[in-house]
C-alpha cells in the first residue's frame, strides 16, 4: 500500500508494509525516517519555512511550515517509540533554478532551517543523507516493507 504525504503534513507508520511517498517537493523539504529495529518510519514535508507561513484553510485544516511541523514530527516519533538517535534519515528537496535572484533562495532558507532544527535532536551526522539542491523535480519514498529510502530525481529512482 502506498500513502501520499502532502506538503505541510507528516505521517508515521509502525509495523506495516507501507510505502510513504511525497508529492514533487519543489523548493520544499521532505524529511524521511526509518527505524529498522522498531520496523517503523515516517515522512514530514514542508514547502514554506516559518510559522508566519502556516496556512489555515477554510475547512480548518492547517498546512504547516517547517518551523511548526518539525518539532511536532519529532515529538510524534518519540511518542511512537522511534529511536530518534539511532534511526536513519534522508533529507530531500530544496530544488532551485540554475541561477536565481537573491530574494528567490527559498531552497536555501528551507535547508538551513531543517539543518538548524534537527541539531536539537542530537542526531549523528552519519545517520543523515542529504539529497538536496537538484535542478529537477524530486520526490522521496519511505518503503517500510524493505526498510529503504527511495529518492526519485527527475525520472530516475535511487535506493538508499
Amino acid at each position: 500500500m502506498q500513502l501520499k504525504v502532502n506538503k505541510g503534513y507528516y505521517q508515521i507508520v509502525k509495523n506495516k508494509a507501507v510505502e510513504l511517498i511525497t508529492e514533487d517537493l519543489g523548493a520544499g523539504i521532505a524529511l524521511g525516517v526509518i527505524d529498522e529495529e522498531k520496523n517503523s518510519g515516517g515522512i514530514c514535508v514542508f514547502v514554506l519555512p516559518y510559522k508566519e507561513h502556516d496556512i489555515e484553510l477554510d475547512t480548518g485544516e492547517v498546512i504547516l511550515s517547517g518551523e511548526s511541523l518539525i518539532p511536532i514530527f519529532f515529538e510524534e516519533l518519540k511518542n511512537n517509540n522511534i529511536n530518534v538517535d539511532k534511526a536513519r534519515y534522508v533529507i530531500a528537496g530544496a530544488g532551485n533554478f540554475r541561477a536565481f535572484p537573491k530574494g528567490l533562495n527559498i531552497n536555501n532558507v528551507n535547508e538551513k532551517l531543517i539543518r538548524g532544527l534537527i541539531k536539537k535532536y542530537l542526531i549523528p551526522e552519519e545517520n543523515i543523507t542529504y539529497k538536496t539542491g537538484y535542478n529537477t523535480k524530486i520526490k522521496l519514498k519511505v518503503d517500510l516493507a524493505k526498510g529503504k529510502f527511495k529518492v526519485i530525481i527527475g525520472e530516475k529512482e535511487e535506493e538508499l
Partner: protein
Amino acid sequence: MKEEQILEKIFDKVETIPTFPKVAQQALELLRDENIDFKRLEKIIKSDPGIVANFLKLVNSPAFGLPQKIDSLFKAFMFLGVNQIKFIIIASVAKNYFDRPLKGYGIDAEGMWLHSITCGFIAEEIAFKLGLNPAKIEAVYIASILHDIGKIVLDLYMDLEIEEFYSAMKEHPDWDFIQIEWLVLGVDHGLVGAYLLEKWHFPKSISFAIRAHHDPDLMIQSEVAGIVALANALTNYLGIGMGVDAFYYRLPEDLLSFLNLSEKDIYKLLKTGLYKMLTFQREF
C-alpha cells in the same frame, strides 16, 4: 529522426491544435466595454456548451470565494468582478488544452492543469500588487494560464526523442533546457506557444511573454513577461505540476527589482498561491 524532419512535423502538429474559441475571444472583447451588457455576454458564452460546463465548475470552486452555489452564467456574473470573469473564461478554455498527460515532460494531466491555474493565481496577485491596468491584467491572465501551451505540441517529439534529450543534457551540463530543446527539436516550447498565440491573433505582449518565460534576457523586457516568468518560477518552487525541466533554467538577478518586489513579497505570493491552489484542488 533528423532535426529538420522533427521541426517540419512540429509545425504540422501546430495546425492540429484547436484554435482558441471565437466565443471566448468575443466574451473577452465584450468585457473590455465600459458598460458591459451581461445578457449579451451570457448569450455569447452559452453558444459553447464546453466553456459553459467548465465555467460553472470553476466558478463554484472555493478559490473564487462565492457565498453560494452558482448554477447559471448570469448569476455568476452578478457575483463576480470583471477580472474574475475574464480569469474564469480563460481558465475554462485552457482546461480543454491541458486535459492529457505530457509523458515526455513527465507531467500528468492534473499536474499540468494545476500548474497552469496556480501560475494564473500568482500572476494575478503580482499584477494587482503592481496596479496594472485592465488590458495588462487580461494579458497577464492569458499568458500565465497558457504559458506552457507549446509543451502540448512538443510533448510527442520530446517523448520520441527522450534518449536524445538525456544524452544532450549529459553532454552539455551547463545548457538550459531551452537550449536542449533547440538542439534536439530545433525549437523550444516558449517559441511554439508564442507562435500559437500569434496565430490566434492575440496581442504581441501576450505572445512575447510566453516566448520569454524561460529566457533570462527577454523576461525583463516587459512587465507582463516578467510577471509570467516569476509566477511560473514560484509555482515550481511550490512543487506544483513540475516537469523534468522544472528548474533547468536561469532567472536573471534583477527579476525582482524589475518588478519592484521584495523577498517578503515573494513569501506572501507563495503563501497565497499555495492557499488558492489547495482550495481550488479540493473541489475541482
